[in-house]
């Protein structure tokens, strides 16, 4: 409870941040240094470490509660213990998150008094709500964690505590996220006078709040999963018994599984966010990928690509512990080629600031051939390819220890109901978007009426996607599920990656604003395919005979280093994106409203930025390691790992 008080004290101090704080002897102090160090880098590092801890603390409860629920519904105790393990990590990180929040608040008040005066004027009401929510979250977290054993017989009550924890967490995220979003897309400010005249809600729900919230929520879950997997990997490497190794192998796998499941949605949440940033300010949007931050975006693309590659590699290594997986090994080379081709295109830049000499070297401002691969249609196509390839790895993994598929007719009413729901949801969303495009008014995109002809092929292709979904479902019902899956995956690849990928270039030249709709069409088609193929797969293999039991714990050490690398890459990526998000404002504290007039209001070089980011990530990982070590000190006396791990091994 002390930890919660720490945070509240920090915010009480924030509430006291009055303009008077900024005045010394009548002169207004706008900026201060941190013991001679520049305030910008100081706040940057503190904020980033706080945000990384915050992401973990808000991300982990989402899947911890989900796993506890799965354990409760299925009666599989392993999930319950895993959820408890994840929550133990959470408990350790929570206090540090709160302390860092206090430190960040103090740093902002003391280093940026002018900014904080304006910011307090806009958000002062939200500070109290935030503090109140923090109380709720603190109480919910500790109640959830400490009542685990006591409420074993009243699992529903315990799960509700978890839900309360998540509700408070998301509400906290909504408010704190809105502060950051507001700095990029201020609302309620009078143009000309630059004074805030809006309401608190207007400020909280500013134009970028929701896109950021969505992206952060997904990002937090992915990040939480990978950090938990890293913890499991370190524990695996240090395990003294086969049982312990089995437990942490499974924990690492589940952390990675959580991350992969979320990762499928992240590129599109990112695309949506980027689109909204561009809509908020084309200057800021263009600067993001075509201006000062274009190289940082290439580094980000590299990190995202590496995460996908490593996730696939981990799944392939994991197949080594599954009897029967050797039947599918031959497909891996095709998936590898798809992922690497996609990665290469994903990484290809288009618009970079180049010197005259550099332009001469490549024969113009961009490469004559590769320039096409740098454009958005190519990126949209290959990210779909990479996701489809990763999904294929996942399918192979989950089928590995199963003998041939079981006839769908043997799955009973539950199978038919699930298939119908999946068909309605997947087909419904694609159909609905096809109708939207059919009725799309070109004027709403600032296009001439005759450009409506460009929309037609996309709408028709979506209708074909719906038809393919119907075909896949019908074949499944006719006990040809495997064929239905193949047809749907094949068509989705053709449609979402190849046809719309190429057609995107046509759209770019004739109706560029419509490209956004093309990207959404590609994604919805892919999503519908993943949903329906997964549901079919579950019922095809649910009652299938096992080839042999999974040999948990029998993983090579390099697989655990893959998990560690994944966590490092994800953390670095979050820090890179955090820097880009903040840096896009350039010389503005609050974009277009409150200018940064300090000597540190410049965009640093990539070398400086990457050094600060890497040191920040190192500090975070070091602190996280310390927290986990401390949490582990008291674990031995009460840990159920040994007994529970034995149950996994013998399961």
């Amino acid at each position, binding site marked *: 409870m002390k930890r919660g008080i720490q945070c509240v004290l920090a915010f009480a101090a924030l509430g006291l941040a009055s303009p008077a704080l900024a005045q010394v002897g009548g002169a207004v102090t706008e900026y201060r240094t941190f013991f001679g160090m520049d305030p910008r880098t100081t706040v940057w590092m503190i904020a980033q470490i706080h945000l990384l801890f915050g992401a973990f603390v808000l991300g982990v409860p989402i899947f911890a509660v989900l796993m506890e629920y799965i354990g409760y519904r299925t009666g599989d105790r392993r999930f319950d213990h895993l959820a408890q393990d994840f929550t133990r990590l959470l408990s350790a990180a929570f206090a540090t998150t709160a302390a860092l929040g206090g430190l960040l608040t103090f740093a902002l008040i003391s280093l940026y008094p002018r900014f904080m005066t304006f910011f307090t004027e806009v958000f002062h009401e939200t500070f109290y709500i935030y503090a109140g929510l923090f109380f709720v979250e603190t109480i919910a977290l500790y109640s959830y964690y400490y009542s685990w054993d006591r409420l074993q017989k009243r699992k529903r009550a315990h799960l509700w505590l978890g839900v309360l924890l998540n509700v408070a967490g998301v509400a906290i995220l909504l408010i704190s996220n809105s502060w950051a979003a507001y700095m990029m897309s201020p609302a309620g400010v009078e143009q000309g006078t630059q004074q805030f005249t809006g309401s608190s809600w207007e400020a909280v729900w500013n134009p970028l709040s929701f896109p950021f919230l969505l992206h952060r929520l997904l990002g937090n879950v992915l990040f939480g999963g990978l950090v938990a997997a890293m913890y499991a990997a370190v524990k695996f490497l240090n395990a003294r018994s086969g049982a312990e190794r089995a437990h942490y192998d499974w924990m690492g796998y589940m952390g990675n599984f959580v991350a992969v499941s979320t990762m499928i949605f992240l590129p599109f949440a990112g695309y949506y966010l980027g689109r909204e940033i561009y809509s908020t300010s084309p200057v800021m949007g263009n600067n993001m990928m075509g201006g000062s931050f274009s190289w940082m975006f290439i*580094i980000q693309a590299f990190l995202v690509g590496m995460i996908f590659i490593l996730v696939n590699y981990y799944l392939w290594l994991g197949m080594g512990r599954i009897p029967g997986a050797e039947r599918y090994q031959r497909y891996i080379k095709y998936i590898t080629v798809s992922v690497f081709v996609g990665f290469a295109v994903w990484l290809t830049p288009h618009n970079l600031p180049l010197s005259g000499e550099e332009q001469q070297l490549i024969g113009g401002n961009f490469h004559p051939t590769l320039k096409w691969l740098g454009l958005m249609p190519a990126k949209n196509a290959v990210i779909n390819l990479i996701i489809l390839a990763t999904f294929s790895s996942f399918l192979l993994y989950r089928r590995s220890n199963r003998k041939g598929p079981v006839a769908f007719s043997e799955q009973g009413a539950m199978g038919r109901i699930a298939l119908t729901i999946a068909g309605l949801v997947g087909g419904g969303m694609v159909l609905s978007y096809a109708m939207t495009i059919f009725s799309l008014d070109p004027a709403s995109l600032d296009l001439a009426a005759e450009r409506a002809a460009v929309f037609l092929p996309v709408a028709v292709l979506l209708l074909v996607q719906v038809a393919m979904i119907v075909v896949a479902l019908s074949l499944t019902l006719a006990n040809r599920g495997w064929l239905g899956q193949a047809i749907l995956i094949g068509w989705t690849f053709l449609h979402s990656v190849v046809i719309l990928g190429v057609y995107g270039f046509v759209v770019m030249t004739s109706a560029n604003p419509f490209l956004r709709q093309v990207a959404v069409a590609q994604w919805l088609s892919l999503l519908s395919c993943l949903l329906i193929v997964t549901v079919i797969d579950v019922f095809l293999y649910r009652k299938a005979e096992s080839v042999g039991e999974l040999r948990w714990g029998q993983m090579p050490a390099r697989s655990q280093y893959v998990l*560690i690398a994944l966590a*490092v890459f994800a953390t670095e990526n979050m820090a890179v994106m955090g820097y880009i998000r903040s840096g896009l404002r350039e010389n503005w504290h609050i974009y277009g409203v409150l200018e940064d007039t300090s000597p540190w209001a410049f965009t640093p070089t990539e070398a400086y930025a990457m050094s600060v980011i890497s040191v920040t990530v190192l500090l975070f990982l070091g602190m996280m390691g310390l927290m986990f070590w401390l949490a582990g000190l008291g674990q031995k006396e009460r840990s159920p790992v040994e007994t529970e791990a034995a149950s996994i091994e013998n399961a």
Partner: protein
Amino acid sequence: MRGHFAKVSLFAIALLAGFAFLGHVVTSISGGAVVAVEGVGPEAGEAIFWGKGTCYTCHAVGDRGAAIRGPNQGDTGPLGLPVGLRAEARATERAEQTGRSFTATDYLLESLIEPDAYVVEGYKAEMPTVHLPPVALDAEEIKAVVAYLVSQGGDAEQLRVEQSPLWETVKAATAAGAAVEPFALYLPGDPEAGRALFFSPELTACSRCHLVNGEGGQVGPELTMVAATRSVPFIVESILDPGASVASGFEQMMISLSDWSEISGIKKEETEDTLVIADTLGEFHTIDKSEIDELELIPGSAMPENFSELLTVDEFHDLVAYVLTLKGEAAAPATEGGSD
């Protein structure tokens, strides 16, 4: 235990050092210095175009730059002409559209300070206004950019920006951006009294043309959410000087019919054969297109411009106070823009 911990730590440190090194490699291989240029000539404009003005993030100039959000300003752009020559063709087009005389310089100045006034087909109306934050160019910088654009195919030596009727607007706008007193109404006003005025059929008769929460006419823009989407100064200006800014879709037109009669008002509906016009009395007229001799856009708003004479100071503030309560209950997309 220690062995593995050390290995894991070294592994993580090696990865992070690799990222830091990557940043150094990127910095060392790319970029080129940005040089500041003083003055108002094409060279200074070029430096602003490719620097502070951030124009290059949307526009390429011929082979230079790769941005495609906005039209290319070189000879690979629209009409196959560089912007210096293209501006002349656009000026002719703008003169026909507005009924005012337009030079190439006028067109370029308008494009910079009122970018939505004319949008090249195939592109979105999304260019920022260059004298406002975050770009915030001053009048001299705008002049330099115009000089640079004219130099793309045209003769910048012959440029006389100060002679453009828009130049005064540019100076006023950039000066306004530099120092503005906070806007404040003189009196708080009584919203209830204002509501009575709004719906009074005699004095203001606002509701004859404007819809609020389903009540009123549909000649002008709906005002159900106007206070949620528009600033106080804008609303005040829209009442006292409605012609200053006319909402898109509410331009006034004069129609001469073959029977020598005339109808003026706002176009509400158009089919292949007919046109529906709403006049300022709130009446709708369906006109057969075959009967139209001439159709002409009338500058300014259809809304009466004499509210400053009709209303006392108290009444005016009451009316404004009421309008400021209109933050929306019903969906009201038509409030966009607006001389209301």
